[in-house]
């Protein structure tokens, strides 16, 4: 069961990567990164049990925290840089509204 769950997580990671690479807007990418981070946390926890040494969950905790920090950072700084981004994705939808 553990291995099946690990495989499922790996597949989801692949899907998230696809979205992160394709992602038409910046926010899609942030979403993909966030999801990827959560999946990594799960993967690490599962791997610990699969390999028989589950003491190393500290790493998973660090991932959860760092993931949060980086999402906050991306939001914070995308706000700053927004006004100098090219007429592209976001302005596009704004014009359409």
């Amino acid at each position, binding site marked *: 069961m553990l291995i099946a769950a690990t495989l499922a997580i790996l597949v989801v990671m692949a899907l998230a990567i696809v979205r992160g*690479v394709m992602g038409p807007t910046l926010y899609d990418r942030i979403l993909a*990164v966030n999801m990827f981070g959560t999946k990594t946390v799960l993967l*690490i926890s599962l791997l610990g049990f699969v390999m028989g040494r589950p003491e190393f969950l*500290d790493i998973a905790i660090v991932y959860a*925290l760092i993931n949060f920090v980086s999402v906050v950072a991306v939001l914070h700084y995308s706000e700053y840089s927004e006004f100098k981004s090219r007429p592209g994705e976001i302005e596009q939808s704004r014009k359409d509204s």
Partner: protein
Amino acid sequence: MVLLGFLVCIAIAIVRLKDLFAVVMLSGIYGLLSASFFVTLDAVDVAFTEAAVGAGIATLLMLVTVTMTGRYEHSAHHNSIWALAVVLVTGVLLIYGTLDMPYFGSVDAPAQLHVAPRYINNSMQEIGVPNIVTSVLASYRGYDTLGEVVVIFTAGVGVLALLSAVHRPEKDDGIVSVNVSMHEKYLILRVVTKILIPFILLFALYVQFHGDYGPGGGFQAGVIFAAAIILYSMLFGMSTARRVISQPLIQLLSAIGVLVYGSVGVVSILNGGNFLDYNLLSDDPVAGQHLGILLVELGIGCTVTSVMVIIFFNFAGRTEDHMRNERKSA
């Protein structure tokens, strides 16, 4: 194995993308991926560090830089055919070189035969610390680690020299109002962060002092500590964070960390041993080792935290100044 394939995909995507923001984000994923790969290869300490550093701090610093330097890359591939040729030739040569390598995971590879068995077999009696990585890092190869800490300290000094703003910029109404609106917008985020930050700090302390028994140690703890402070300063504004953690104090701390490390070495000389010979710090050699490792890790943690915070403060401060000037001129 699959993870490595992912890594290659991400790297190729990074080559292709022009939007630097996306590139930075993908490099964040790249960091997470390589860290999980390290976990599968049993390198838990390395994974720990890579998670905190490669996925966290590096991405963050790049984000700040990209914010300032502009989001898009100009498509100027001046000499890309030559570059491709050079890269391909080098790659083929390197792959040819790997054909002589011992296979992955083989027990009798030359790398496994020399010092490693001694570390694995003797460290429990000599150092008394279950985490071999910590004992090698802080004791057997303490000299190297001192060098690394000095390198980090130097990088902090370099960033200070390059980016520290001499003048205190006057308060601008525009940026203040932007900040206020942003803070109202992220009310929930701020509340949750306020709850989380004590836990992050506590966890950093746990990592610092549990490093003897599990993955962790000064480097990792320092980075986590710094991440907490950075989180605070992002959500509550740089000026608030500067009031909590004053710049001179943190500069002093970064120097103190190196000093603690060095003075442990000097004390062991004064006790009649070699530099960084912890056996003589106490009557019992193993207790001496414990004490030495504890102090050294403390020094490392101190330096790493303060250098990371210095770097971030200067980056963010510089970017804010830049943005303000740009807004004024616009």
